[in-house]
């Protein structure tokens, strides 16, 4: 995995490389490491079982989706980044975290050669959201942190308010459960 430098570009020959997925939400583009993405599906073809959270303690998470015997919290990308309402058409199902992220579009796959740490002037939630910044085709793009979509604290809150739901998403009791073609 590309190690972040701090706001200075690594010499060209020494640059590590990392495959990334370029996606967009609203008018903004982001990248995320391809190795952290298990699957990319359209919202219309996601399939699986969707369970509504009884207690949606986070506005950005209202459902769990179960696919292939695994369950994921469905995170609204635009709400996560505090953006205006958008129209998600794709879902990034992440690999090492129980998270599926709704995004507007998948733009392309690309090779990231530089990863710069967030400038120190940044002090907000972006330090959780992003691994850093990269430059692709002379555009500066934030590199999404997979574990930033739901922090350990947020996961704990979801679990506390919906105990056992993630583990039992395929066998829920007393929850709204339905086969779904779109999320």
């Amino acid at each position, binding site marked *: 995995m590309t190690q972040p430098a701090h*706001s*200075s*570009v690594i010499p060209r020959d020494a640059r590590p490389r990392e495959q990334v997925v370029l996606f967009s939400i609203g*008018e*903004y583009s*982001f990248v995320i490491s391809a190795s952290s993405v298990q699957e990319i599906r359209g919202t219309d073809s996601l399939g699986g079982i969707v369970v509504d959270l009884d207690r949606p303690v986070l506005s950005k998470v209202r459902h769990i989706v179960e696919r292939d015997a695994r369950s994921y919290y469905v995170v609204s990308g635009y709400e996560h*980044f*505090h*953006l*205006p309402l958008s129209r998600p058409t794709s879902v990034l199902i992440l690999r090492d975290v129980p998270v599926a992220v709704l995004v507007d579009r998948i733009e392309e796959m690309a090779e990231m050669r530089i990863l*710069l740490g967030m*400038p*120190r*002037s*940044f*002090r*907000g*939630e*972006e330090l959780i*959201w992003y691994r850093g*910044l990269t*430059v692709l085709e*002379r*555009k*500066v*793009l*934030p590199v999404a942190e997979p574990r930033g979509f739901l922090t350990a604290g947020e996961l704990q809150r979801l679990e506390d308010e919906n105990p056992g739901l993630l583990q039992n998403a395929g066998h829920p009791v007393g929850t709204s459960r339905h086969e779904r073609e779109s999320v």
Partner: protein
Amino acid sequence: MNAGTNNQVPSFVVLQVGTRRIALPREGVAELIASPLIYTFPHTTPLIAGVVLRRGRILPVLDLGPGVSGALSPSTRFFLVVERHISNAIEKCAIPVQGACELVSGIMVPAADLDGYVTGHLDLNGEQIEVLDLEKAIAFSASSGNEWIPATEALP
């Protein structure tokens, strides 16, 4: 930017933020740049309007407008690159400016209230220019209540 001529007299960079002319001590200013593009992405840090690329480095763009002139700075392609001291490190930031910047020498009259972000005044041909403490101005702007710059309203 005009070069100063007298090394014994302190130098200041006079710039225009929004509708207001202010001055910063020369020592903290690196350069004036023209950047055609400002890149924006979602974040929640007050005052930051985006970033610009400069010689392979990414510089945060700090809009002092809300605190200094009471409104977001108009769109511009000129930025004054200043050095901030953050966590025992120096970080260069870009401040959007309107119009020309000047490098002037002069004696600053210290402000009566040293708690504020104005550290003194310069008399430039009868015009009183406030000299700012950059870090205090940033802190003031960030706490002034209208510091939030939604990504959708940030400089293009």
